[in-house]
């Protein structure tokens, strides 16, 4: 027997029992796959977290930029706050009827 000849390890080969071995292989594959699937759920959530935050930040930036570019909104001359501010600036003395017309009564009716 030369040194190039293989050592016969068949006595230690677990796959000589082909049926038992194939069952073991199938079990390993199935259990490994099941664990990988369970492990992938939180990983997937973590993977989605960053793009979701980036998208939300981009939307917020777009809304802010739109509002900024549109400039301040002109005040409506009929709005109560504007009218009252005008009274104060002009030191006007509105009558009770004018006040009720602008601010409304207890029911908020103007």
């Amino acid at each position, binding site marked *: *027997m030369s*040194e190039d*000849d*293989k*050592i*016969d*390890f068949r*006595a*230690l*080969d*677990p*796959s000589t029992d082909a049926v038992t071995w194939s069952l*073991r*292989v*199938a*079990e*390993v*594959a*199935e*259990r*490994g*796959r099941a*664990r*990988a*699937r369970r*492990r*992938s759920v939180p*990983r997937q959530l973590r993977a989605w977290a960053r793009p979701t935050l980036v998208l939300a930040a981009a939307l917020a930036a777009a809304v802010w930029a739109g509002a900024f570019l549109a400039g301040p909104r002109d005040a409506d001359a009929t709005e109560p706050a504007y009218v009252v501010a005008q009274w104060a600036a002009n030191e006007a003395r509105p009558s009770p009827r004018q006040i009720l017309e602008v601010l409304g009564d207890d029911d908020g009716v103007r």
Partner: protein
Amino acid sequence: MSTVIGREATQALVIRAQRGDGAAFAALAGAFLRAAYAIALGVVRRPADAEDVAQEAFIVALERIDACREPAAFPGWLLTIVRNRAKNWVDRRRLRDGVDEDPPETAVAPIRPELVGLRERLLAALTVLLPVQREVVLLHDLEDWTHAEIGAALGMSEVMSRQHLFNARRVLRGRLADDALPEVDHERG
């Protein structure tokens, strides 16, 4: 490995498994579970325990298949996991049994060949090898891996793999030949 699946096929299977392909998990287990067993056997030196260690280590590897950054290097990555878990298993066995040595399932010596089977003789002979020699000879002679595959998986050159195989076979043959001698010859000697 060379008789079952090549480097490119391994890479493709690992990528498919990373995408959740169930058939790829089965193919990887079919291709590499025996190699995992060979590595585990080299460490724990008990076939039944080696099967259990290899199985659990393989399941862990499949569970963490996403962590295999180089799919083509899957064999080496897998065998590292198997080796580490086998060593942990041996450490736990030592703690549990309170012994420093790791006897195989049958005592190493004295061996009376007429009383023990080939399996026990092989296990006993393997104990005299260096760990790396055990891995090389088992992967080559049991699993039919080439030296290129062994070198890639164990992180050594092909030349070094050949050297380990040569030395391992020489030691094993000497050991097995000694065991095969009839007891009467020993007494006469």
